[in-house]
């Protein structure tokens, strides 16, 4: 059975602490007393030590995050292949919110027969996710069906069949699409782009460096990184009623490897020169193709880029990675016309922001 390691209370008055160091990585073996992370408040720093020997199954935070006291930071298991629980419980009911619940949260509180003051909030307002997490931890079932949750609005299939457990990458995709459905407010915009100009730019770079693989998509992704670094709103998410602008640009890039779709992450991509970025991303892609990516290379995306040009589709509407506000989608239609599009979180960005970015991305950089 998995063991939860909770975010500790450092000061009586602080319900949130900053995670300044994270030493636990998924798959890592740990011993009792190993330091998994370090949190701090204005007054103190505290090591979070492992309460048990085992393996890290999941990590619910990243360095620099502000985390809520009493929430799970790390799940430990006796074996590395044990599944981490999908929902974690708040350990400290002292963190119960006095914040105003959102409309969705209010509806869920009524369904579970809960009061807002008994449910810990993870942000400035009590969210629907907070209520679901609390209810799952308490083993509560809704008294009425949740109309906002399509999965519960429909009966299970009546025709005979067999239940097949999802593999880890399939569970990851389920988490991603559920985050978009339950948390984000997605919008979609597309523009045509100057494919011949970009292709000429990529060919020139390829010939100069005698590259085996076309650098087109990595160069476009790097241009996106440059634009996001200049305008932090693109590289952000919403926490409560605050926009959380990430300190660095971690570019998530989709890689299809057989039946598995990875989101490989180039961390601190804005610190890389274009060719260093291209080489790094190609290295991630080749290791994804061999299913050799490290868990840490699949975490922490702050913005995304995806292409379906391989399939020559005319349009694809990508899904936002959790806690991101922008996923750019690229394709080249069968007639050779280029399309750049984006799914964006309308809570963070508006259409004009996204259209402006796509227009800038539609032309290669002028060297």
């Amino acid at each position, binding site marked *: 059975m998995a063991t939860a390691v909770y975010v500790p209370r450092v000061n009586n008055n602080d319900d949130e602490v900053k995670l300044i160091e994270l030493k636990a990585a998924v798959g890592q073996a740990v011993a009792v007393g190993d330091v998994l992370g370090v949190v701090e408040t204005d007054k103190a720093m505290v090591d979070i030590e492992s309460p048990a020997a085992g393996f890290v199954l999941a990590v619910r935070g990243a360095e620099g995050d502000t985390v809520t006291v009493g929430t799970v930071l790390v799940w430990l298991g006796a074996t590395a292949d044990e599944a981490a629980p999908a929902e974690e419980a708040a350990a400290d009911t002292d963190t119960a919110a006095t914040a105003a619940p959102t409309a969705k949260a209010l509806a869920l509180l009524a369904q579970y027969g809960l009061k807002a003051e008994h449910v810990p909030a993870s942000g400035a307002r009590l969210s629907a996710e907070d209520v679901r997490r609390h209810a799952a931890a308490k083993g509560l079932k809704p008294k009425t069906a949740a109309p906002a949750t399509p999965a519960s609005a429909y009966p299970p299939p009546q025709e005979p069949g067999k239940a097949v457990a999802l593999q880890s990458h399939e569970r990851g995709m389920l988490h991603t699409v559920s985050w978009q459905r339950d948390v984000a407010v997605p919008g979609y915009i597309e523009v045509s782009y100057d494919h011949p100009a970009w292709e000429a730019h990529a060919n020139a770079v390829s010939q100069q460096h005698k590259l085996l693989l076309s650098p087109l998509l990595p160069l476009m992704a790097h241009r996106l990184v440059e634009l996001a670094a200049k305008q932090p709103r693109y590289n952000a998410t919403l926490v409560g009623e605050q926009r959380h602008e990430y300190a660095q640009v971690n570019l998530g890039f989709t890689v299809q490897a057989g039946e598995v779709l990875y989101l490989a992450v180039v961390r601190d991509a804005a610190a890389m020169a274009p060719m260093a970025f291209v080489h790094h991303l190609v290295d991630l892609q080749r290791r994804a*193709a061999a299913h050799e990516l490290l868990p840490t290379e699949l975490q922490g995306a702050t913005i995304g880029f995806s292409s379906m040009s391989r399939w020559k589709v005319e349009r694809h509407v990508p899904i936002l990675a959790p806690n991101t506000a922008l996923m750019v989608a690229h394709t080249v239609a069968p007639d050779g016309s280029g399309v750049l599009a984006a799914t964006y979180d309308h809570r963070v960005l508006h259409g004009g922001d996204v259209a402006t970015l796509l227009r800038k991305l539609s032309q290669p950089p002028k060297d």
Partner: protein
Amino acid sequence: MNLDTAAIVAAIQAQVIALADQMGIDASDLGADDLIPATGYIDSAGLLELIAWFEKTYAFKVPADDLTIDHLGTPASMAAYVRRAKGL
């Protein structure tokens, strides 16, 4: 594992043909000295799968800096590359 040049070239050609077939492309006329990226038979994603297969089949690693057309551009150059790596 047969490390004769002709056998390696034939294995690489067969792999390219199989990868191209997944995308509905016939690559059966791929020559030993054809520049694979220029043929259009497989795209970058296909090339990545080809390199992953190449490393696994011949049990070695290609350094990132060697992902160039000089080293791995054609079936013949790939065969020469792996033979050098094996000290042949």
